[in-house]
C-alpha cells in the first residue's frame, strides 16, 4: 500500500485521467541514458558516504576522459552533461565540464542545445568568466527563425547573463517585444526584468515599452510586465501614480472572472496576478489619500470574492489585508480586514494561524485593540509546540510591550532563547530583550538579572551595541541618583556572586562587562575590600579560557582598583605575571600599572572614583609636544603634514584631478597643521567617554534589602525570580492594587500556570491580563483592576538620551581610553586653554567675514534683527568696530568714508534682500584705492570692486581684470554696472562668481589698470579671500522634504563638537549655524535640529545636529561627496570660536 502512496502524489485527484503512453521496459532504453540510470542505481545501492565518493570520483574521471576526447559526439556529450549535473547535485566538483556545456549550447542540435543551456544555467553563476563565451551563442539564437531556439536563448538570458554584455543583446530582445508569439514576448519581458534588476540604467530608455507590455492582449505578457512594475514602484512609487487606474481596472477584470479559464487555479481566477496587483496597489496607495480612494472599491470586492475555502483564496485575502492596512485608511475596509485577520488567527489550520499572527504583528501598532480581541489565541500560541508559531507570537508581543507587561514578555522571550540554538535567532532575540529591558525595566534587580541572561546567552554573538549601551546606562546614570547607585551596587554584587561560582564559564563579552563594572563601581561595596575584588579578577586573569582582549579589560579593572586598595600582594603578582606577557597590549597596560603604583598620588588623581562620565579635557592641539617638535624641526626634520595634505600633494604630483582641495585652508585659518578637523573630533571623542578628570564627592550607599539571588547552578532566571518572590513577600492575590508588584505577581502566575495544569483556563486568562495590560480600554483588563502606569525606571538624564544612538563609543574605548589617557593628563588644562585662546585670536583675525556675516545674515533669517533699511549703516558700523585692524582707511579717507557709506547704502537699496559684506580695501597707492565687498546674492556671489580716486579727480580708463581661477566660474556683469559716482572719481566693477568645485578657502586675484588724466597707466594687483561660506545659501525646505532628501543622499560625515554649555546649546548652536554658515533651520525637535543649505548653484546639503552630554553631534549629508567634509570643518570653526566672538 505504502508503495502506491509513495509513488503517487497525494493531493492530486483528477489529474490521473490522462494515462501514460506505456513506459517501456528498462532494457529498451538507449545505452546513453542507461548510463545515468546505472549511475543513479549504483549510488543508491551504496551504503556509505565513502563508497559513494569513490564511485563518483570514478565516474567523474571517466566523464573527464570522454568529454575531452575528440571522438565524442554531441549526442554523447549531451548524455555526459546530464551525468555531470547529477554529480554536481550530489556535491562533487565537475568544473572541467563547464566549458563543454557552453560548447554544447553552441554547437548542438535543438535537443542537445537545450541540455547545454540547462547545464550552463546550473553550473555557472552571473559573474563566471566562462559566461562571456556564451554571449555569441545567445545572440545567434536570438536571431534564429526557430522559435524554440529563441525561447531557449531568452530563458538563459533571464537566468544568468553577464551584466557588461547586456548592450550586445538588448536591441534584439527589445525587438522581441513586438514578436507575434506571446511566449516570445513574455520571455522577452522577463529578460528585460532581469536586466532591470542587474543594470537598471541600461533599460531606462525602454520604460515606455513596458507600458506597451502592460497593455498586451495576452494575459501572460501583461502578468510578466507586472514583475517589472512591482520592482520599479517599490523603488519610486510616485513616478507611477498615473498607472493606478490601469492596475485597478486589471484587478477588477481578474476578480470579476474576465480572464480565460486557463488562468484559473482551482477555480480561483489568476491568483498570482491578483497578488501581484494587490502588492502594487499597496505601494501606490501608501500615504496617498487620492490614489487610495481609487482602489477602495476593488479591494472591497477582492475581500468579498475570496470566500472559497481554499489555500489560494487565503493567500489572496492575506495580501488584501496587507494592502488595506498599508494604503490610506478607510474605516469600512479596515473593519473587514480586521475580520479577515480574525479568520486567520482562529483557523484550526496551523499555516493560517501563523499568517494570522504575522498579520497581527504587522498591524498591531496601528490597531492594538486587535491584539486584545485575540488575546486568548495569542496565549495559546505562546505555548505552541511548533517553535515557529511561538516565535511569531513573541514577535507580536515584542511590538505590544509596555512598562506593565514587560516582565512577562521578557520572561517568555528568555524561555524561548534558552531553547534555541540557531545563532541568527539568538542574536535577534537577545537584541530585542536588551532593548525592552532598557526601555521598560521595572526595577534594578530585574534589569540586572535580565541583562545577565542576555550576556550569558547572547555572549559573543550579540550585537556590540548591547554591552556598549548597557555600560553607558550604568555610567551615565539616570534622573534618580539613589536608584542609580543602587543599580550599580546591585550589578557589582551580582557579578561577584557570578564569579564566585566554580566551573562556570561566561562569554568573553560578559566578562568584559563585568570587569568594567567591577573596576568602576566596586567602591560601592562596603562588605568587601578592593583587595578581594582584585583577587577574583586575578583568578580570572590566570584562567586559560580568557581571551587576551578580555585580559586587557581585566587589567584595566585591576588598575582602577589598585588606586583604591592599599598595598596588595595580588597586584604585585599581576605585575610580575604580565610584565613579561607576550601580548604587547597587555604588557603595556601592566607597565602602566606598575609605574603608577610607584606614585600613589598621581594614580589617585588619574583614577578617581566614579568619574567615568566626567568630561576629560584633552589637549587636542598636543601643544605639550611643541618643544619636542621645535627641537625636531631645528634639527632639520620635515614639518608634519596632515593626511589630507599629503594625499593632495600626492595627487597633484600624479596629475590627477584633485577632489579634496583643502589646500590653503589650514594655513590661512589660523589652525596649525596638526589641528585638522580629524584631530578635533578625535579629541572630543575621547573626552566623551574617558574616566579620569576632576574630583567629586561620592554618595554613600545603602546595602540593606539587597539579596543574593544567584543559585549554584549558574543563572536561572525563572528559578531565581521564584525564589526571590518567595523569600521577599507572600504571593500576591490577583486583586492586589497595581504597583510595581504587578509584574512580579504576573510572572509568578505564569509559573503557577505551568505547575497547575488543572486551572489552565483561568491561568491563561491571568496571563492574558498580564500580557495585554496597558493595551486598549481598561475594561478589557479588569482582572488586574485599573492598570496603573508604572514610570520608566531608567529614564535617562536628558543629556544622556541623545548619546544613545549617535557617536557610539565602542566599549573598548571605555577602558582603553582610560588607560591611554594617562599619558596626556599631566599636560592638560592650562595648555589646552591657551591653545584654544590662541586659536580664537587667530581665528578672529583671519575670518574677517565672521561678524558682519552674522549680523547681516540675521536680517534674512531671524525676525528679531533690524529692518533692511537699517542694514547699510549697521553693517558698516559693525564692520568698522570689529575689523579695525584690517580695514584701515587711507589717510585721506575721511571724505571717502562718507562716500563709501553713501554708495554702500545705494547698492543695498538696489539689491534689497541680498546681504553684503563690509567694504574692504584690497590695495591702494598714492592716487587710488581699490576696495571690494561681497554681495551674497541668491544665485551667485557678486563681487564688487570699486576703484576710487583719492584726490577726487577724474579716473580715466580704469580697467579691472581677474586672473582665471580653477575653482570659479567668473563672469563680468557689465550690463548692470552701477552708475558712476562722484563725477567719475569712483568706478565699480562687478563680477558674479560661481563655485565650480568645493573648497574651503581660495584666493581670487586680479589687477587694476588705471590712468589718471595727467599720468601714464598704472597697474595695481590685489587679491581677495573667498570662503566656501560665500557660496552657501539657506535651503528653505519642509521637514518632509528634508526626510526625503536625507535618504537620497549618499555622502555622509559625522562629527562631534565639544561645546561649553550643553544645556542651552541647541538654540545657540542653531542660531550660530544659521547666522554664520547661512544654514536654514528646517525644524527643531527636542534636542535635535535639522538644517539645510545649498551650495551655489544647486548642490544641497543637509545637517542633522543633536545635543548630547558632551557637545554637539553633527551629521552631514549631501549629494556632493566633498561638501559634507567642508561644511563640517566650517561648523567646527564657528563652534570652536564660540558665540561670543
Amino acid at each position, binding site marked *: 500500500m505504502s508503495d502506491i502512496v509513495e509513488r503517487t502524489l497525494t493531493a492530486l485527484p483528477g489529474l490521473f485521467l490522462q494515462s501514460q503512453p506505456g513506459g517501456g521496459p528498462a532494457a529498451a532504453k538507449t545505452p546513453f541514458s542507461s548510463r545515468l540510470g546505472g549511475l543513479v542505481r549504483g549510488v543508491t545501492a551504496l551504503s556509505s558516504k565513502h563508497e559513494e565518493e569513490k564511485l563518483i570520483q570514478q565516474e567523474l574521471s571517466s566523464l573527464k576522459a570522454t568529454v575531452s576526447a575528440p571522438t565524442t559526439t554531441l549526442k554523447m556529450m549531451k548524455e555526459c552533461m546530464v551525468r555531470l549535473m547529477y554529480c554536481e547535485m550530489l556535491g562533487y566538483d565537475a568544473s572541467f565540464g563547464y566549458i563543454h556545456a557552453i560548447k554544447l549550447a553552441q554547437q548542438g542540435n535543438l535537443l542537445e542545445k537545450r541540455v547545454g543551456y540547462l547545464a550552463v544555467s546550473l553550473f555557472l553563476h552571473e559573474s563566471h568568466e566562462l559566461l562571456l563565451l556564451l554571449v555569441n551563442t545567445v545572440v545567434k539564437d536570438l536571431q534564429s527563425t526557430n522559435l524554440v531556439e529563441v525561447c531557449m536563448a531568452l530563458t538563459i538570458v533571464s537566468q544568468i547573463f553577464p551584466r557588461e554584455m547586456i548592450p550586445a543583446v538588448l536591441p534584439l530582445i527589445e525587438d522581441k517585444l513586438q514578436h507575434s508569439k506571446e511566449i516570445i514576448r513574455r520571455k522577452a519581458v522577463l529578460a528585460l526584468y532581469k536586466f532591470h534588476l542587474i543594470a537598471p540604467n541600461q533599460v531606462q530608455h525602454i520604460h515606455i515599452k513596458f507600458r506597451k507590455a502592460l497593455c498586451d492582449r495576452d494575459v501572460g505578457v501583461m502578468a510578466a510586465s507586472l514583475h517589472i512594475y512591482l520592482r520599479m514602484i517599490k523603488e519610486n512609487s510616485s513616478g507611477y501614480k498615473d498607472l493606478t487606474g490601469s492596475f485597478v481596472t486589471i484587478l477588477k477584470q481578474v476578480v470579476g472572472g474576465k480572464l480565460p479559464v486557463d488562468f484559473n487555479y482551482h477555480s480561483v481566477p489568476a491568483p498570482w496576478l491578483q497578488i501581484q496587483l494587490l502588492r502594487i496597489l499597496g505601494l501606490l496607495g501608501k500615504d496617498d489619500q487620492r490614489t487610495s480612494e481609487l482602489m477602495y472599491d476593488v479591494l472591497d470586492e477582492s475581500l468579498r470574492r475570496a470566500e472559497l475555502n481554499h489555500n489560494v483564496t487565503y493567500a489572496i485575502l492575506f495580501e488584501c489585508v496587507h494592502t488595506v492596512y498599508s494604503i490610506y485608511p478607510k474605516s469600512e475596509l479596515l473593519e473587514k480586514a480586521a475580520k479577515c485577520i480574525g479568520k486567520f488567527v482562529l483557523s484550526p489550520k496551523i499555516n493560517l494561524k*501563523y499568517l494570522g499572527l504575522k498579520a497581527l504583528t504587522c498591524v498591531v501598532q496601528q490597531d492594538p485593540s486587535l491584539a486584545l480581541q485575540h488575546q486568548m489565541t495569542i496565549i495559546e500560541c505562546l505555548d505552541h509546540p511548533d517553535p515557529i508559531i511561538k516565535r511569531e507570537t513573541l514577535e507580536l508581543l515584542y511590538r505590544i510591550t509596555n512598562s506593565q507587561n514587560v516582565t512577562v514578555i521578557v520572561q517568555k522571550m528568555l524561555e524561548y532563547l534558552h531553547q534555541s540554538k540557531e545563532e541568527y535567532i539568538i542574536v535577534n532575540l537577545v537584541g530585542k530583550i536588551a532593548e525592552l529591558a532598557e526601555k521598560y525595566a521595572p526595577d534594578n534587580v530585574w534589569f540586572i538579572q535580565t541583562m545577565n541572561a542576555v550576556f550569558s546567552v547572547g555572549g559573543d554573538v550579540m550585537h556590540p551595541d548591547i554591552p556598549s549601551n548597557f555600560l553607558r546606562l550604568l555610567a551615565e546614570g539616570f534622573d534618580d541618583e539613589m536608584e542609580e547607585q543602587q543599580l550599580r551596587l546591585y550589578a557589582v554584587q551580582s557579578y561577584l556572586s557570578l564569579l564566585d561560582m566554580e566551573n562556570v564559564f561566561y562569554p568573553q563579552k560578559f566578562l568584559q562587562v563585568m570587569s568594567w563594572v567591577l573596576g568602576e563601581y566596586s567602591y560601592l561595596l562596603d562588605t568587601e575590600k578592593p583587595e578581594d575584588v582584585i583577587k577574583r579578577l586575578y583568578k580570572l586573569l590566570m584562567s586559560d579560557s580568557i581571551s587576551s582582549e578580555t585580559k586587557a579589560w581585566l587589567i584595566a579593572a585591576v588598575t582602577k582598583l589598585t588606586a583604591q586598595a592599599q598595598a596588595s600582594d595580588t597586584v604585585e603578582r599581576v605585575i610580575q605575571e604580565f610584565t613579561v606577557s607576550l601580548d604587547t597590549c597587555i604588557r603595556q597596560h601592566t607597565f602602566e600599572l606598575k609605574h603608577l603604583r610607584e606614585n600613589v598620588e598621581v594614580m589617585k588623581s588619574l583614577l578617581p572614583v566614579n568619574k567615568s562620565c566626567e568630561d576629560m579635557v584633552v589637549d587636542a592641539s598636543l601643544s605639550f609636544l611643541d618643544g619636542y617638535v621645535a627641537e625636531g624641526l631645528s634639527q632639520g626634520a620635515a614639518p608634519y603634514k596632515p593626511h589630507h595634505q599629503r594625499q593632495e600633494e600626492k595627487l597633484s604630483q600624479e596629475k590627477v584631478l584633485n577632489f579634496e582641495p583643502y589646500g590653503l585652508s589650514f594655513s590661512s585659518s589660523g589652525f596649525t597643521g596638526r589641528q585638522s578637523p580629524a584631530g578635533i573630533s578625535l579629541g572630543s571623542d575621547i573626552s566623551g567617554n574617558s574616566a579620569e578628570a576632576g574630583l567629586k564627592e561620592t554618595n554613600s550607599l545603602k546595602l540593606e534589602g539587597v539579596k543574593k539571588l544567584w543559585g549554584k547552578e549558574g543563572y536561572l532566571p525563572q528559578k531565581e525570580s521564584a525564589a526571590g518572590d518567595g523569600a521577599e513577600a507572600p504571593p500576591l492575590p490577583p486583586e492586589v492594587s497595581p504597583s510595581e508588584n504587578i509584574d512580579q505577581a504576573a510572572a509568578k502566575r505564569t509559573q503557577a500556570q505551568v505547575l497547575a495544569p488543572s486551572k489552565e483556563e483561568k491561568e491563561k486568562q491571568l496571563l492574558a491580563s498580564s500580557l495585554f495590560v496597558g493595551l486598549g480600554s481598561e475594561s478589557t483588563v479588569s482582572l488586574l483592576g485599573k492598570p496603573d502606569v508604572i514610570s520608566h525606571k531608567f529614564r535617562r538624564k536628558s543629556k544622556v538620551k541623545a548619546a544613545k544612538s549617535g557617536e557610539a563609543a565602542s566599549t573598548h574605548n571605555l577602558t582603553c581610553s582610560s588607560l591611554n589617557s594617562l599619558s596626556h593628563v599631566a599636560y592638560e588644562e592650562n595648555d589646552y586653554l591657551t591653545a584654544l585662546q590662541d586659536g580664537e585670536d587667530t581665528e578672529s583675525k583671519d575670518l574677517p567675514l565672521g561678524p558682519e556675516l552674522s549680523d547681516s545674515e540675521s536680517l534674512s533669517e531671524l525676525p528679531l534683527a533690524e529692518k533692511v533699511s537699517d542694514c547699510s549703516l549697521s553693517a558698516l558700523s559693525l564692520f568698522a568696530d570689529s575689523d579695525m585692524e584690517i580695514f584701515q582707511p587711507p589717510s585721506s579717507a575721511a571724505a571717502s568714508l562718507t562716500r563709501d557709506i553713501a554708495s554702500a547704502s545705494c547698492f543695498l537699496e538696489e539689491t534689497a534682500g541680498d546681504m553684503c559684506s563690509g567694504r574692504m580695501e584690497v590695495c591702494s597707492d598714492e592716487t587710488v584705492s581699490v576696495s571690494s565687498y561681497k554681495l551674497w546674492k541668491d544665485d551667485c556671489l557678486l563681487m564688487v570692486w570699486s576703484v576710487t580716486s583719492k584726490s577726487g579727480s577724474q579716473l580715466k580708463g580704469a580697467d579691472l581684470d581677474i586672473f582665471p581661477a580653477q575653482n570659479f566660474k567668473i563672469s563680468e556683469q557689465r550690463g548692470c554696472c552701477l552708475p558712476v559716482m562722484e563725477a567719475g572719481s569712483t568706478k565699480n566693477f562687478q563680477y558674479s562668481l560661481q563655485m565650480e568645485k568645493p573648497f574651503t578657502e581660495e584666493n581670487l586675484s586680479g589687477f587694476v589698470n588705471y590712468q589718471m588724466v595727467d599720468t601714464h597707466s598704472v597697474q595695481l594687483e590685489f587679491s581677495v579671500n573667498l570662503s566656501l561660506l560665500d557660496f552657501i545659501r539657506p535651503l528653505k525646505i519642509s521637514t518632509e522634504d528634508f526626510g526625503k532628501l536625507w535618504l537620497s543622499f549618499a555622502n555622509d560625515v559625522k562629527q562631534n563638537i565639544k561645546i561649553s554649555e550643553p544645556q542651552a546649546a541647541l538654540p545657540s548652536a542653531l542660531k550660530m549655524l544659521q547666522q554664520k554658515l547661512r544654514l536654514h533651520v528646517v525644524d527643531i525637535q527636542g534636542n535635535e535640529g535639522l538644517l539645510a543649505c545649498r551650495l551655489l548653484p544647486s548642490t544641497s546639503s543637509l545637517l542633522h545636529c543633536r545635543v548630547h552630554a558632551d557637545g554637539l553631534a553633527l551629521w552631514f549629508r549631501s549629494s556632493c561627496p566633498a561638501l559634507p567634509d567642508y561644511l563640517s570643518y566650517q561648523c567646527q570653526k564657528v563652534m570652536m570660536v564660540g558665540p561670543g566672538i
Partner: protein
Amino acid sequence: MAMQFMLLFSRQGKLRLQKWYVPLSDKEKKKITRELVQTVLARKPKMCSFLEWRDLKIVYKRYASLYFCCAIEDQDNELITLEIIHRYVELLDKYFGSVCELDIIFNFEKAYFILDEFLLGGEVQETSKKNVLKAIEQADLLQENRIRITARVSMGGLRKNLY
C-alpha cells in the same frame, strides 16, 4: 517577491533537484542545503509549513516521499508560495503522468525544463498550466524517441533500495 532558491530532496535527505535564483558560492549552497534538509526533516508532520531561517522564510511541503522546499523573503506571501509548489507538482504530474520520485530522479533534466517554463529568475513566468505544458511539448516534439523511465515493474526491487 522573487524566490531565492528551490530544493527538492527525499525523506532520506538526498537532494533531487536544486535551483538557485540568487548567486551564491558552491560552499554556501552546500551549507544551506545541508542545514535546511536537516531542519525540515526534523519537523513533525502537523507543524507549520513555514520556517524562519536566517533572514529568509522557508516554505516547504511534502509530497509522498519528496520534500519541496522554497526560500522567499520575509515580506513575501507564504501561502502563494505553497501554491507555487503545488502548481509545479501538478505540472510534473501532468507531464509524467502520476509522477513519482523515480521519474524525477531519472529524468531530472526534464523536471528542470518544466521548472524553467514555470518559474523564471525566481518569478512566476506562466500561470496557465496549459501554456506551460504546451511550451514543453513543443520542445519535446523535436525529440524522436522520448526516453521515459516509467518502468515501474522492473524497478519494484530497486525502489526498496531507494528508500
